């Protein structure tokens, strides 16, 4: 739920956004913001900046675990299906081979392991990242459309316990940004 106005009639805000001149400046600013005690910090960059996720306090992503689970489900599932159909449900003597002729069951098992792992990796990455989410308040920020082109941004969310409009704005300005702007909830 998004409030439309606050008690004193002001537009509520999503957060404060500072822009930095390059990737290194963004990483340095993110580190200092975390050190200052802010918890809800997001950094936006046009490419994957090394060290930036750690600087905003991202500890571990669970994509690899999800992928492993997908691979096990895919491979185990198809092997079970082959075993069940060839041994239990409809056993056929095919050239005297054992019903559970496991070497012949390996190709589908391998393929479905890869398939399960890839599907889980892709959808796991999307869901863990909160995507798809076509609208987000950050898109209301001035010049934010350049974040996917060439600009580097750091946002401190208003929900942060330490967030205070003036104090936070002063703090962001002290980080040597190129500019600081307000992210409103509605455009």
């Amino acid at each position, binding site marked *: 739920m998004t409030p439309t106005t606050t008690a004193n009639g002001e537009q509520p805000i999503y957060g404060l956004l500072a822009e930095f001149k390059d990737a290194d400046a963004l990483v340095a600013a993110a580190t200092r913001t975390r050190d200052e005690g802010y918890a809800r910090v997001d950094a936006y960059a046009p490419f994957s900046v090394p060290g930036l996720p750690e600087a*905003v306090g991202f500890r571990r992503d669970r994509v690899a675990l999800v992928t492993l689970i997908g691979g096990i489900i895919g491979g185990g599932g198809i092997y079970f299906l082959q075993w069940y159909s060839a041994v239990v449900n409809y056993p056929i003597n095919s050239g005297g081979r054992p019903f559970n002729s496991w070497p012949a069951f390996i190709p589908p098992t391998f393929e479905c392991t890869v398939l399960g792992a890839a599907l889980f990796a892709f959808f796991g990455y999307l869901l863990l990242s909160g*995507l798809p989410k076509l609208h987000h308040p950050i898109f209301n920020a001035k010049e934010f459309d350049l974040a996917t082109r060439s600009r580097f941004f750091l946002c401190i969310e208003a929900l942060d316990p330490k967030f205070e409009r003036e104090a936070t704005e002063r703090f962001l300005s002290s980080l040597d940004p190129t500019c600081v702007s307000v992210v409103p909830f509605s455009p």
Partner: protein
Amino acid sequence: MPSAITATSHRVDEERIKFLRGRYSYATISDKISDIVLTRPTHWGYYAGFALCTLLTLLFVIAIAYLFKTGVGIWGVDIPIAWAFAITNFVWWVGIGHAGTFISAFLLLLRQKWRTSVNRFAEAMTIFAVAMAGVMPILHLGRPWFFYWLVPYPDIMNVWPQWRSPLVWDIFAIGTYIIVSILFWYMGLIPDLATLRDRTDHRIKQILYGIFALGWRGESRQWKRFDTAYLLMAGLATPLVISVHSVVSLDFSIGNTPGWHSTIFPPYFVAGALFSGFAMALTLAIPLRAIFGLKDFITARHLDNIAKVMLVCGLLVAYSYVVEIFMAFYSGDRFEKFMILNRMSGPYAPIYWTVIFCNVAVPQLMWWKRVRLSTLTLFVISIVVNIGMWLERFMIIVTSLHRDFLPSSWDVYYPTFWDWATLFGSLGAFGWLFLMFVRFLPAISISEMRKLVLEKKEGET
């Protein structure tokens, strides 16, 4: 070192062999690539190619419609040659797809920087080639409307697929391959779709690119998960490529037909697949960089590297040819020996010797750096290898079938008009899809190019 001498004697322009030429910033490189899709007027060469591909695609549709209406009798196939053009096309198209995955996945694992500007269009090549490949076995079925019987699903007939058959393995391999290729490609596209969403002023484009960008914001946590998932997908796609063409080769080698029944088939087919796929990558990259002015991104260095990989794959393929001949005589099996001699001097001898010329003789030109740096020569070699690899698949399939164990059933296969229509129609449909792709999606990964700009900057300071 002798390279010092050659470097001064015919000195190659240093700038020409970089992975990224010119001075670009994050902004200019983003604009340059996205403008191809968003604002740049279309080159006349594009329209000419598009018109030709559209006509061939229509021919493909007509050939398929006529086939579904009449049956496989419209083709030249008969007993004993029940497999011919459709299966040749299938194996050839799958093989072409493999180079795309190899470039995007395997080179990512090896941290090869030259991958960055060629991976996107190579992945697109994979998807469209595998799409063409996937159609072929279905067309080839006598009753194509029952193709789904290969898939295990609960039905009242209570009949399961025969799990010990390579044809069932095949549908799992190809099905997995196309799905994983699309996911991998789309995943890499999401940040670029967001760039297009934010760069265009056109409302409908904003909405369409916006929907497919899924609301990508470029937040650092998203990037981190993106990197992990992308690397994992690359790690999964690399063995997948090897497995897919190995399974395709098992379609043949599990049968006892002379010329098919051989343990060298899986590696032989994988090497051939990469060989033809890298040739197709060159066939597509050379006009692409010329028409869209991408010579700063797809540089002579990229073409040089692709040519080197092709040379290695070509040598592996040549080695396989030699082993085939050796094993036939070493085995002492009269049918195997006859098969090889018949390939070299029988009714299909011209095809055999054309294959040797295209796949063994011509690629040796790429030992010379001068050849590898000459765009036109490389383009011609790539076409020659494409033809040679198609003929190789045809040779393997048809020469083994047309002289089987029983001389009374021997026959010679002649393609009909509809065989040719299916082959050239699929080429047209592939080209059509590829041309649509370069017009509506960035043919080079924008976000990865920005990272290359960063690395180049760090390298200079």
